[in-house]
């Protein structure tokens, strides 16, 4: 009798624990948005590729248009750093996100984010060195220091792909120095902390004009997919479709399909584990 009672009590406790666990399992992350709720606010996250003020200037209008599209409040948000941005992606704190190719393939896609649209023109990355540098060719990078942004960043991925394409192993043939931004890479190169760095090709002229210096391009990447708008998998399907329609209609953007990223998904997978930062 006593054992029966004890056994029933254990079952009750077990069931209660399971019930509570199931409830807790269905609760969305504490930091997730409430975009799915009626009248809930959606977060539009933009990866920190520029200053927060410039990001706000550029994307605030889009956020307001998105509010009209979704018929609810859409707030623009960015992050202080790429890792923070990627962390929030993983936590689904962004209902809508603008991310680079690396962010998408390495973080957002595994987290379930759905590509909505991407910029139609491809993006090129280059390895540059100062004009007066003795480096004349990418092979001259052997044994040298190369400045790269964080591993999940498109610039970093493109830099590694360029090295691979030219038969260089980033982990063996040279020293990778992790830097926070493209501007940080240029600054480190000009102060001789690194011998070369990887940056997006469109910004080469900008940096040359800004710093009154000339850079020598050691190598250029193949065409890489440009930035993409993503939708959280937590959004309702009709919301996702509305967003896709909206972004597809934007100038220079086209609707994204998973196949668009296949080639580079394979190449990134081929890169394996991202190189660890030496500093």
């Amino acid at each position: 009798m006593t054992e029966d009672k004890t056994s029933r009590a254990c079952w009750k406790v077990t069931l209660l624990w399971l019930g509570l666990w199931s409830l807790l399992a269905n609760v969305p992350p504490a930091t997730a948005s409430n975009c799915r709720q009626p009248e809930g606010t959606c977060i539009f996250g933009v990866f920190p590729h520029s200053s927060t003020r410039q990001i706000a200037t550029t994307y605030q209008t889009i956020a307001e248009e998105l509010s009209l599209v979704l018929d609810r409040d859409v707030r623009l948000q960015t992050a202080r750093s790429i890792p923070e941005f990627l962390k929030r992606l993983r936590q689904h704190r962004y209902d809508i996100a603008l991310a680079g190719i690396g962010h998408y393939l390495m973080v957002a896609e595994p987290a379930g984010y759905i590509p909505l649209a991407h910029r139609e023109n491809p993006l090129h990355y280059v390895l540059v060195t100062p004009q007066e540098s003795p480096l004349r060719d990418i092979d001259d990078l052997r044994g040298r220091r190369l400045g790269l942004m964080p591993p999940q960043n498109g610039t970093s991925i493109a830099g590694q792909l360029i090295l691979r394409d030219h038969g260089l192993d980033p982990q063996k043939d040279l020293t990778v120095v992790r830097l926070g931004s493209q501007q940080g890479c240029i600054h480190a190169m000009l102060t001789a902390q690194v011998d070369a760095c990887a940056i997006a090709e469109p910004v080469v002229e900008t940096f040359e004009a800004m710093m009154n210096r000339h850079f020598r391009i050691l190598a250029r990447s193949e065409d890489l997919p440009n930035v993409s708008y993503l939708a959280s998998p937590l959004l309702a399907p009709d919301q996702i479709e509305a967003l896709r329609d909206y972004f597809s209609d934007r100038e220079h953007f086209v609707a994204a399909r998973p196949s668009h990223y296949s080639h580079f998904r394979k190449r990134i997978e081929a890169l394996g584990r991202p190189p660890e930062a030496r500093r």
Partner: protein
Amino acid sequence: MRPFRSLGTRIALIVIVAEGVVLAAMLWLTQSHLRNALKQQAEIEHRLTLDVLTDAAYTALLTDEYTEVTPLFEHSVSNHHIVSIRLLDRDGRIVAASNPTMIGTIPGKLPPTPYPALLVRQPVGEPDSALGELQVVFSQQYLQAAYMSSMERSLAIAALGLAGTALIGLTLGGRIRHRLNRIVQQTRAFARGQLDARVSSDGTDEIAELGNAFNQMADRISRDIHHIEELAYHDSLTGITNRLVFHERLATAVRSARRHGHQHVLMYLDLDQFKVVNDTCGHDAGDALLVDLSQRLSTLIRARDTLSRLGGDEFGVLLENCTLGEAEQVAEKLRASVADYRFRWKDRTFRVGVSIGIVPVDGNIEDEKQLLSQADVACYAAKKAGRNAVRVANAQDGEVARHSAELAWIARLQEALEHHAFTLHWQSIAATTAPERRPFREALLRLVGTDGHLIPPGEFLPPAEQYGLMPAIDRHVITLALDHLRELPTEDRPEKLFINLSARSLSDDGLYTLIQESLAKNGLAPGLLCFEITETAAIDNPELACHFIERIKQLGCSFALDDFGTGLCGFNYLRELGADFLKIDGSFVTGILSDPLDRSIVAAVNDIAHQAGLQTIAEWVEDDATMQALQSIGVDYVQGYAIDRPMPAGVAMRTGSEPAINQG
């Protein structure tokens, strides 16, 4: 002196009040500027702080990361006069704050602070799409402290300035008051008669100028007063005291004699033969003689005695505390000195004398007028006694008594003129051949005595003639007569009104003008008037009489020769004088019935007058028989009790009495 009446206190007060007003205005202005400057500085600081905080808040809100902004808020609170900072997101939740315990809460009221504080709400982001709101509470305590500190310093400086100004103002005011008081004291002393009061000059400022101006004024007034005293109390010709001083001192002597029994003596001096010098050598010589004698006489009396010039050649001497005997000796000394004196003028030498009347001033004297009168009488007696003599006043002296009575008449006549005590009576002058004609009338002067009785002219005219009062009396008579005529209706006026003039009036230059102006003023025809002068007056100065009669006749008036027959006037004068009427003296008329000579004289005078073109008037006609006799002789007019008696002008005018001429 009450404090606020003092000029120095007023100046000090005005300076202090003005300084206070200026300082208050400056203080207010300075503090206002300081308050504004502090406010602007605080606003700038707030703005800069807000810019930094807002920028950080913007990034924090956009990135939803507050780990970096919170230390910034905490640091700001500790360093920038900030009480608290909190950042609200778009939902109004506190997402970051200087006090971390507030994070995640809904903001309530700010906790009260023991000092002034300012809450500033700053939207983060664009106003129409703000990401949130930054709320910063700035402390105002340091502003207030700075303001109060400045105010305390300014008030201290202002108080010091005011105290200094008050000290300076009171010192300066005191100096000014002290200097002005000196001037006031000297001015008051001067006003009290201290003519040597002067202000000592110190400095060159306005007060010193005032003092100098006072001194100049005092100098000038002193000189003028001295000059006025000279003019008022001294004779301008001789320099000795004048009549005014003499009367004052005589009055004092009279009081002294009556109250204390002191004995003084009055002497009245009249120069003999002075008129000779004046007439032969002119007034300059006469003046020089008077100056010489004044100096000579003044050396012969004591310093305490008074020698004054009382009139033309008349002097008075008052010997104070002197017996009559001593005075007689002094008088004799004076007389002898004048008698010994020789006056030389150009190449001529004159001897003069002096008649001196002496009166003792004792307790029996009524007043100084009586004294002077007695002295004058005594002097007159001395002159009567042969001139150059000394005579002591004596009431028992007959000559003195008569002269004294005459002098009394002079005073009485002057008083009568002054108080209009004279009156006119009218007496008719009737035509013998045409009695129905309006008669002539003669204005006869009467004096109304103090008891109301009429005083006949025989009593008062001789002294009036002797003492030169007749011109004034004649003027008075003319004025009275014309007033009466003016008041009469034209039909009641006499055909002519005869008015008597004295011999002295013939030389009265103003009389002609008076007659002319009085006629015009009263609107009367000159032909209404006929002036009479006596035969004696006419022959005393025939040229003067002719000239006067000529002017009067040119004016339109008539002229009559009065009392003809008594003055031994030559018949040739009848034509030269140009008279219109001849009045036959009554002494002949009264005897024509009993004395054939009188009748012959009257007839002859009447006949001659007619021949000379004059009409005749017989006076003193006292009965009808005389009147008939005159008619038979051919006299033109008659006047006397047989016609009517003199009656007051007003009565004569009302009755319009007709003369009683018996035609039978």
